[in-house]
């Protein structure tokens, strides 16, 4: 039965192609085909869809779309088909092809054309094949992918037709693949199918794998099944490599987050030797600054929204930096040389800051939006990369580079290094060490604030935001080697990638635990971190 219909559809399609080739269809010629949709019964409906598709005329696309959406109605009086929308007491009718007004009808005068899943599928695949003829290459590319996904043997002639006309090599390849996939589902001879499998294997990828798995499962023992099996193994092998690449990508992404969170700490803890347990709260303050900025923009100048992050960056730096300077002046400066006390006091500061934010903004997550350029994703081979992750990687590296420049190339950086290396000497040379201390601490805190702006894009903005990063940040700094910014960079990416590689085997939580255990053991082997020994050489 199904087979028969398919053959019939194929026949129709060929017929239609001949017609298409012969003369460009016009709205008038299409009208009867559209009215064909009004015939009773799903089978007839599907035939009518096939006939419409076979015209290859982009003009029928809106009709099919309306059908799929359930907007097509039949006027009982003349069985003409219209696109109708509810209007007071009845329906407003429109010509489905042209969209021209076609008067109104009472709700009893028209009848909705009902669709089931099979019909919807037919609509989708018809739409797909239709756009194969579109003048717009982007549309053709999407359509080719659609056709490939549906791999309907009935469309083979149409595909052949499209291939012969196609000028874009990429789209042509996809069409070849679509044809191969369709052939596999048809009753073509085994030899042809095996050739099709070979073609598909050459393409590879997840979609092909899914199709081949289905074929392999349903094919009877023989050449086709065997070929499918080898193809599957080979594709799986390739996919594993891609998975590895994807893991590295995820790892780099996580690494950049770790780097952002740790980089400020690398200054306060690494360079100054101050152990600041409120570091995470500086990140949180940066994230809340972003929230406030966005809130103001939303309410007053919505058109600025895409600029909200750019505006937040300097503000977050200032706010967090200022809080940092205050903490340094009010608490930390009394505790230099007493790291354990500093640890406790700054933990207290972190509690106060958390509670202050909780009292002010409430305990719940606040909504921080992604500007348009931060949302969405793009594909690279078999990899999916989201824009926000990509920008955060870029951003982390930019922050890192800027910081290196500040420390290496500015008078402030020189003074900072002088003070941290030899305080009495620096002080006797006229450097105002208390100022340098406060500003350096402010710099570290400000950078944490900047990190908060970036992290607000991928994490929940809540009073506990910072808590989630503090241990990780310390691990990164200690692992990389205290006092060495390059170590922090390498440490962040190493730990990020290690984490993501462990995840598929151990699960997210266990992966994290394993990384923690690894670091604990590592610190015990090399208490001064990865790069401690080379420290001075690298810094210089």
């Amino acid at each position, binding site marked *: 039965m199904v087979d028969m219909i398919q053959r019939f559809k194929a026949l129709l399609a060929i017929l239609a192609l001949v017609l298409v080739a012969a003369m460009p269809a016009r709205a008038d010629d299409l009208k009867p085909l559209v009215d064909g949709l009004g015939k009773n019964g799903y089978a007839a409906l599907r035939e009518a869809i096939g006939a419409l598709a076979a015209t290859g005329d982009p003009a029928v696309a809106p009709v099919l779309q309306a059908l799929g959406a359930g907007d097509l109605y039949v006027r009982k009086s003349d069985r003409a088909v219209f696109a109708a929308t509810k209007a007071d007491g009845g329906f407003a009718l429109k010509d489905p092809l042209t969209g021209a007004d076609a008067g109104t009808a009472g709700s009893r005068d028209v009848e909705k054309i009902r669709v089931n899943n099979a019909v919807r599928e037919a609509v989708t695949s018809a739409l797909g094949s239709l756009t194969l003829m579109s003048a717009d290459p982007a549309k053709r590319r999407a359509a080719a992918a659609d056709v490939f996904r549906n791999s309907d043997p009935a469309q083979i002639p149409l595909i052949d037709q499209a291939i012969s006309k196609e000028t874009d090599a990429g789209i042509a390849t996809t069409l070849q693949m679509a044809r191969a996939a369709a052939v596999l589902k048809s009753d073509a001879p085994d030899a042809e199918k095996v050739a099709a499998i070979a073609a598909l294997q050459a393409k590879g990828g997840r979609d092909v794998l899914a199709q081949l798995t289905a074929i392999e499962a349903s094919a009877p023992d023989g050449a086709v099944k065997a070929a499918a099996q080898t193809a599957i193994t080979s594709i799986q092998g390739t996919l594993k490599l891609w998975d590895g690449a994807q893991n590295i990508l995820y790892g780099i992404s996580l690494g950049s987050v770790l780097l952002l969170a740790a980089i400020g700490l690398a200054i306060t803890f690494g360079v100054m030797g101050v152990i600041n347990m409120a570091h995470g709260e500086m990140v949180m303050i940066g994230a809340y600054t972003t929230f406030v900025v966005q809130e103001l923009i939303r309410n007053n100048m919505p058109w600025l929204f895409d600029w909200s992050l750019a505006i937040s960056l300097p503000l977050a730096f200032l706010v967090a930096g200022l809080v940092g300077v205050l903490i340094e002046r009010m608490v930390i400066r009394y505790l230099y040389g007493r790291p354990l006390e500093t640890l406790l006091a700054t933990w207290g500061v972190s509690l106060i800051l958390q509670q202050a934010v909780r009292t002010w903004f409430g305990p719940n997550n606040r909504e921080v939006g992604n500007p348009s350029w931060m949302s969405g994703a793009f594909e690279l081979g078999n990899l999916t990369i989201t824009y926000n992750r990509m920008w955060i990687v870029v951003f982390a590296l930019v922050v890192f580079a800027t910081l290196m420049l500040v420390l290496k190339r500015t008078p402030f950086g020189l003074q900072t290094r002088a003070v941290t290396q030899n305080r009495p000497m620096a002080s006797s040379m006229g450097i105002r060490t208390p100022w340098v201390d406060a500003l350096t601490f402010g710099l570290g805190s400000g950078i944490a604030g900047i990190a908060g702006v970036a992290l607000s894009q991928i994490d929940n903005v809540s009073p506990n935001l910072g808590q989630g990063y503090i241990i990780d940040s310390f691990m990164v700094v200690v692992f990389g080697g205290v006092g060495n910014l390059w170590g922090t960079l390498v440490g962040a990416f190493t730990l990020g990638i290690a984490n993501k590689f462990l995840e598929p085997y151990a699960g997210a939580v266990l992966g994290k635990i394993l990384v923690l255990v690894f670091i604990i053991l590592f610190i015990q082997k090399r208490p001064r971190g990865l790069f401690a020994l*080379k*420290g*001075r*050489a690298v810094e210089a």
Partner: protein
Amino acid sequence: MTSTIEPVAHAKAKDSLLYLDGVSVSFDGFKALRGLSLVIEPGEMRAIIGPNGAGKTTMMDVITGKTKPDSGDVYFAGDTDLTRLDEAAIASLGIGRKFQKPTVFESHTVWDNIDLALAGDRKPFATLFHRTSQAEIARVEEILDTIRLTDKRDWLAANLSHGQKQWLEIGMLLAQEPKLLLVDEPAAGMTDAETAETAILLQEIARTKSVVVVEHDMTFVRDLGVKVTVLHEGSVLSEGSLDAASADPKVIEVYLGR
């Protein structure tokens, strides 16, 4: 690791108490010691002098196991390879050390400071159940007497003057009953009277033990009246009596030439 000691080194090291040969140490590429060689005979007292940064303290770090040399041999009492032992093991062998900056246990009393340093079983469980014997009490009293701190026995070490801390530290060294004492700048920060007394104290000690003293203060070294080794940039510049060393043109060059 089972490695045999090089026969040559062994032969030379055999009769000495402390034997350093070709010891080099570098920190981040900076060579603090370069091929330093030094031999101390049993019962000998030796003064080491040299400008700041010559590597005197680093040498003591190497002997006491704080710093591992990059290359070179360090033997104690003939055939004990010190480069393979940790600080505690080296101390237990009988090498005592006084730091440049006096370090005593500030929140312990003078008495407890000496008591802790007293020779005896240093294992955790042994000290947990340790009971102070009459002999130990007598020994602490005796040392307190030597270092002239008997009347301060119940003071917290934190409350002692700088010079008294130096003496307390020397007392702790005595309590360890070492065969070799390494003393780093004992006269630093002392008054002249204290310096003179310290010299007498060290000479008393040197009657029964080998002592290596690092010092800047020339009058102090002269007071000691012992063989002198001059270090410069991590290796030995000159060796002999103080007068001979002071006459050595190389030494004059280093001390006066800059």
